[in-house]
């Protein structure tokens, strides 16, 4: 019987499977907080098992009776409909195997498989390089003797000298003197924490006191003395920072990013970039609230940080 719309209520048959499914989901959610390695997978497994039974139960009506397949009964015209077109022969008597159904399924199935196989490498090449492991850069900025204590330098360098100007970056570096026997540097990225424009020193720079160093591998480092008395400012939308990179005005959502560094054979080596929520104190005594590198404009503290829970590989 073909049920007419409105003939019967649309209430599902009573079953406990949804309850079990819900319990499994609840268990998985609790497990995520309590014990993500054990409880959460158990909850997930429970949910999957009950979901399976639930779906099987709900679709029993449709799966139960196999649909009888109509054999092909296409009436062929006695003569060609269009002059010049051959008339279709009458189907052979007794030819009842639904060959067109088979061909239809085979075409869709084989086409789907081929399409899937072709798509996999395409998807991989589209997203792989962008989201795979990113290359590490260790930039040699030359001898630390080029950094007098307490003096700021504009430092231009190449993240990857082989790729040329497009990887040119700028950092603002101040040598803070030795701390516990090791040299202490403040290395601030010039990428604005608002939308990534290059922040500028609020104060004079001295291009006549420029030093260019070739540190090998095509790396060309330029040091320019500067005096950022008013901190740093962004030309795009007016973000302002103090000398430690703390936001003082404008749209930025946090402090300026900083670079890790190490000293190797008396040379200053740049490492990874990290994000900074704020800096207390200054110079070598500064307390830096350090976070994983986030893009400009992305909050790393405060309630807004819930909008940026995950970061792609860097």
């Amino acid at each position, binding site marked *: 019987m073909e049920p007419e719309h409105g003939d019967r209520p649309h209430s599902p048959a009573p079953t406990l499977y949804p309850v079990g499914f819900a319990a499994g989901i609840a268990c998985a959610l609790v497990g995520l907080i309590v014990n993500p390695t054990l409880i959460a997978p158990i909850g997930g497994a429970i949910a999957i098992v009950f979901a399976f039974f639930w779906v099987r139960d709900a679709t029993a009506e449709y799966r139960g009776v196999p649909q009888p397949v109509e054999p092909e009964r296409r009436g062929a015209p006695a003569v060609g409909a269009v002059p010049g077109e051959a008339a279709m022969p009458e189907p052979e008597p007794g030819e009842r195997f639904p060959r067109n159904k088979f061909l239809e399924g085979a075409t869709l199935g084989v086409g789907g498989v081929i399409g899937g196989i072709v798509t996999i490498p395409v998807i991989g090449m589209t*997203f792989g*390089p*962008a*989201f795979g492991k*990113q290359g590490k850069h260790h930039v040699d900025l030359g001898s630390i003797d080029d950094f007098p204590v307490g003096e700021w330098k504009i430092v231009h360098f190449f*993240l*990857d000298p082989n*790729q*040329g*100007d*497009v*990887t040119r970056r700028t950092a603002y570096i101040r040598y803070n003197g030795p701390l516990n026997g090791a040299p202490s540097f403040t290395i601030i990225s010039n990428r604005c924490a608002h*939308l*990534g*424009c*290059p922040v500028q020193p609020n104060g004079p720079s001295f291009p006549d006191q420029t030093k260019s160093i070739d540190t090998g591998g095509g790396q060309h480092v330029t040091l320019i003395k500067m005096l950022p008395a008013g901190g740093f400012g962004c030309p*795009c939308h007016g973000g302002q920072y103090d000398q430690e990179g703390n936001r003082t005005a404008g749209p930025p959502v946090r402090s300026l990013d900083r670079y890790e560094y190490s000293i190797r054979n008396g040379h200053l080596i740049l490492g990874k970039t990290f994000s900074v929520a704020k800096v207390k104190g200054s110079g070598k005594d500064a307390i830096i609230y350090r976070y994983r590198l*986030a*893009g*400009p*404009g*992305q909050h790393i503290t405060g309630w807004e940080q819930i*909008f*940026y*829970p*995950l*970061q*792609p*590989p*860097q």
Partner: protein
Amino acid sequence: MAVSARTRKSARRQRLEAAINYPIDWLEERSGLVGGLRYFLFRKVPGDSNWFHTLGSATLTAFLVQATTGVILAMYYKPEPKTAYASIQHITNDVTLGWLVRGMHKWGASVFIILLFFHMARVFLFGAYKYPRELNWIVGVLLLVMGMAEGFTGYLLPWDQTSYWATVVGINLNGTVPFLGPYIAQFLRGGAEIGPDTLARFYSIHMLLIPGAIFALIGLHLYLVVRLGVSSPPWSKEAAGADWVEEQVTTNGRSGLTQPAARSSWRRNGGDAE
């Protein structure tokens, strides 16, 4: 038809017409393309359709100008960080009429977007987005998004300071989208940092991916326009829509397209009430 002196043709003229018509008839008999084109071009439109109805065609023309000039520019442009700017200078200063074709592409981009918005405003103010044309409004909005994406990706290609920093800001704006933002930005950059791949992928998106999508969506857009017919202005006293829509209403009241509620006043503004 009355046979007058004017319609009686000389044998010479008949032979001439036959010679002209032969290739057209040849093509029509084998493909039906001529009839299809006539069906597409010589549709019935409401008698009180006006100049505002031409904004869609104007937008299409602007897009075709963009596509044509873009193809020519692609013959001379070199999407490499070390050569992109120089190749733009070469196009502007050295290539014959390069300054004109590049200018058409650059200013035509703004014309295209402006016409998109005028066309959208016309459809909105005429109420032409209402049943049964909602789907065409959605397709149009997708076309608008694609047009904006073309503007964003094309802006980087001159590879000067303005375009570079505008793109930095644009990518980082995308990066502030909640949850997915950092991944969108990473995809647009092609990695954690802007590099040589960024320019190449913007170029590919700008001239292959999005134009392909725009062509497909324009095809769908026009299909729906032809299928549903052009709507009358809101002050019209005529019924709007293609003939068959009206026929469906009277002959097949159960069709999903022709629920009685759909025959509301907007389609017969002040006209003959049921």
